[in-house]
């Protein structure tokens, strides 16, 4: 019970246990006092003898409140249990049943949900006569439809998301889809609402009893005691206040516990105290459009700060096309986000130097960033706002940053959509993202970047979600943007061939650092870092033996939290020696525009041939064992 670890969860949990204990023991302990009629002490106010006063028959109200816990809680829980169970079942049925049957359930729920709880309660009170059973049924039926509707609505909204579509396409059955994919994702609002339902069932009973339609004498719950006390609240407040406080406390206990349970279910992490990040030193600007020196990105983790990007330095020249490659988790996407100032709290970005167009990035105005720095994200499915038309989403860049009128901005949208070769641009601009295909969406995303006058386009895995032909179109488009507008492009990809096709220079990242930087022209001839050569060896080409399993790099990249001393690649590197495991190498110049961070090269030990011969086939293990690590 993770909920109990928070102070609120603990307090409300204790309160619930106390209430449960009262419900069990109070009638046994104080049942006789609560029922004792004392004609000498009728309608008294609060006193030492009678903490909350006495009622019309002289019975002690304090004891009556304690004893009434059992009936109050019992009835509320009974009603909630019946109502929530029925609601969940009804709400889930449409996603499991055949379509026509689901429709019948949906419309039945929709008819039922229309009628508010109290209205139902009054309706049943008329039929059953006023009483406990009618009230339990009424409150349960009042919870059922709204809960069913909530389940349905949440299911519908989650069903529109990509991962559900993906699971459905993969042939996941309806029940499994519901239990494994849909319900866990809507658990939090459901839990919040179930506990709210328990709390409100309790207060609803109090309300019915207050109106004289709920629990009837000689039985009594808090609501009934409250109703009796309310009649004379202006004379003595205690007889009403006691049960009122009880109702509020119990309601609170349910609600707070629900809240705590919900946040535990949502896996919200508690954030530890942040260490002071290294202060940022801004030194005078150097060459190039984008200058990055010693960029670090840190996040608070369970055991302290985790730094997925650990001192990255590079320069992007005007109109240059730079590729960043690395496996997932190498920190390349975070580098891109940090460079574009999109890392959000609690992430912390520091750098000795982070300059764009000759100015420190943190001093660059939003307007300038919005028009001269364009971003293209990995998943064109989710990167557009589903509720707004494509045209509006593009136009707002010009409206906000270039002060264009709505009309002028719309004209520019059409122009830019044409520039990225989207056919019938006028019509397309009025459509919603879901009406676009994936490749077209990615082109629209690039067009969005072209709404300004981009000097740098940062494309984070822009082709990963697309098929190969569309991938080529998008890459060609990026190359065209670079040529025609002399914009620089920072292309991030896990696919070294994508980068090799299009870029001028390549940065190879591993475990949050750049391990090799070299011109693309030299990539296939003089790449020297064992990781780079392994990446290249893992690419199948025309001469690859089709019958052999695909080459892979054995092992996996370290998690940011696992990085210790030494070269992070050492555990996977066939050339690693003692020094590699103890001290992490820095980037060293090995040729014009070519840097490598590897001890074994600095030692002058392995030549490229040796690295490829030793490293290539051995690391790119051709048998299943090597890749199975």
């Amino acid at each position: 019970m993770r909920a109990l670890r928070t102070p609120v969860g603990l307090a409300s949990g204790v309160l619930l246990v106390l209430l449960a204990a009262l419900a069990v023991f109070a009638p046994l302990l104080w049942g006789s006092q609560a029922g004792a009629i004392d004609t000498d002490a009728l309608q008294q106010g609060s006193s030492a003898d009678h903490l909350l006063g006495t009622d019309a028959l002289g019975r002690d109200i304090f004891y009556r409140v304690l004893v009434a816990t059992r009936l109050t809680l019992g009835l509320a829980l009974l009603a909630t249990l019946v109502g929530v169970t029925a609601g969940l079942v009804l709400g889930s049925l449409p996603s499991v049943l055949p379509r026509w049957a689901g429709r019948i359930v949906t419309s039945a729920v929709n008819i039922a949900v229309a009628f508010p709880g109290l209205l139902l309660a009054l309706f049943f009170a008329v039929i059953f006569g006023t009483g406990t059973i009618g009230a339990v049924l009424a409150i349960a039926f009042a919870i059922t439809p709204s809960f069913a509707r909530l389940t349905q609505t949440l299911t519908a909204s989650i069903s529109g998301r990509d991962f559900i579509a993906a699971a459905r396409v993969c042939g996941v059955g309806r029940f499994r889809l519901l239990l494994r994919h849909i319900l866990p994702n809507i658990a939090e609002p459901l839990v919040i609402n179930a506990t709210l339902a328990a709390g409100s069932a309790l207060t609803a009973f109090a309300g019915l009893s207050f109106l004289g339609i709920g629990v009837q004498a000689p039985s009594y719950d808090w609501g009934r005691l409250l109703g009796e006390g309310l009649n004379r609240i202006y004379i003595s407040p205690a007889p009403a206040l006691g049960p009122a406080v009880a109702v509020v406390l119990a309601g609170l206990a349910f609600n707070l516990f629900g809240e705590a349970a919900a946040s535990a279910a949502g896996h919200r992490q508690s954030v530890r105290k942040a260490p002071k990040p290294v202060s940022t030193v801004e030194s005078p600007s150097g060459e190039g459009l984008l200058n990055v020196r010693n960029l670090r990105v840190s996040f608070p983790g369970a055991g302290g700060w985790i730094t997925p990007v650990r001192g990255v330095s590079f320069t992007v020249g005007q109109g240059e096309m730079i590729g960043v490659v690395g496996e997932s988790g190498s920190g390349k996407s975070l580098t891109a986000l940090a460079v574009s100032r999109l890392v959000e709290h609690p992430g912390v970005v520091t750098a000795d130097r982070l300059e764009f167009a000759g100015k420190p990035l943190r001093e660059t105005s939003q307007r300038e960033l919005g028009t001269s720095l364009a971003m293209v994200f990995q998943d064109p499915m989710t990167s557009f706002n589903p509720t707004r038309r494509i045209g509006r989403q593009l136009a707002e860049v010009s409206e906000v940053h270039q002060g264009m009128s709505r009309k002028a901005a719309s004209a520019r949208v059409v122009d830019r959509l044409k520039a990225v070769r989207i056919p019938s641009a006028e019509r397309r601009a009025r459509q919603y993202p879901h009406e676009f295909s994936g490749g077209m969406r990615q082109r629209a995303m690039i067009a969005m970047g072209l709404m300004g006058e981009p000097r740098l386009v940062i494309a984070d895995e822009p082709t990963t979600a697309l098929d190969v032909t569309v991938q080529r179109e998008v890459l060609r488009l990026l190359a065209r943007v670079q040529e025609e507008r002399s914009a620089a492009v920072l292309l991030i990809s896990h696919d070294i061939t994508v980068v090799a096709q299009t870029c001028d220079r390549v940065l190879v990242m591993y475990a949050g650092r750049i391990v090799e930087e070299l011109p693309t022209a030299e990539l296939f001839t003089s790449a020297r870092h064992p990781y780079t050569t392994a990446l290249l060896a893992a690419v199948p080409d025309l001469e690859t033996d089709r019958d052999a399993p695909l080459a892979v790099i054995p092992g996996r990249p370290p998690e940011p939290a696992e990085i210790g001393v030494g070269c992070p690649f050492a555990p996977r590197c066939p050339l690693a020696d003692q020094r590699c495991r103890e001290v992490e190498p820095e980037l060293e110049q090995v040729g014009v525009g070519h840097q490598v961070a590897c001890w074994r090269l600095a030692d002058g030990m392995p030549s490229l041939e040796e690295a490829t011969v030793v490293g290539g086939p051995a690391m790119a293990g051709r048998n299943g064992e090597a890749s199975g690590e």
Partner: protein
Amino acid sequence: MTQVAHEVTGSSWLPFARRRAVRFLTSLWVLVTAAFLMIHLIPGDPVREALGMTASPDVVNARREALGLNDSLVTQYWHYLGGLFSGDFGTSLVSGTPVADLIGDRLPATVQLAVTAFLVVVVVAVPVGVVMAVLTRGGRRRGAELGFTSTSVVLAAIPEFLLAVGLVSLFGVALGLLPVAGRDAPGSSVLPVLALAIGPAAVLARIVRVELLSVLGNDFVRTARAKRLPARLVYVRHALPNALTATLTLGAMMLASLVAGTVLVENVFAWPGLGSTIVGSIQQKDYPAVQGIVLVYGTGVLLVNLAVDVVLALLDPRSTIREA
């Protein structure tokens, strides 16, 4: 393929309108039928119950005859439906006046209370929820988050009639600032509206916050930030509309329960609306009056739900609601 998608979207409105109209009419029919059957489901003789044990059998029978209760069920149902179409809700057993007059007399006061309270809820809860979501996003300001959630939970846990009594004793009795009963004095609606609105506003604000926080994690919010839009536009234009589905659904339920809440609050404040009338009618076993008032409440809620569904369909271009 996208061409097809476009056409589907364009033509999904007509089926939606048809389906929604069918559902509305079906619900209305179910409501009317339930209200009709209510009287017949009561064990024993409703007229005897209403007139009391002392009434002579002749009087009871005469009243039964006058109400048409001696006809066959089908005939009664037919007459009932016919009566409803011509605005005839029956005659009160207690006062002998038409129920339609009673409703016309009392309905405006209840509508005034419910609508004002709902507006207060929305005007307060949505901005508060948005601001709290923005302030506490990504685990910022733990203290503010704790303060907000505990305050909203406490407020939501206090039933409206207790709140009403508290407000009466504080502003009415202790401070003497505001009138506590009736609807004639200026400012007399302030306390009932507050009593009705505070709890739902707390709940709605919390839901808005939770929904908005989950929307803020989406890729398109990052895109909006990458466009360097002002924070206001990122939250209000891009995030908020995507958080509205659940918010509106809950808001509609809240409006419905708020309508029901008027019953309790009207009783505390002696507000001359339908809510105080229905409780009196139940206690006096004035079944035609109960029937009529139940119909009015039910129809009102059905109309609210219809409006919400139309708004949801307008807001949701992927048409999941329309095609659901």
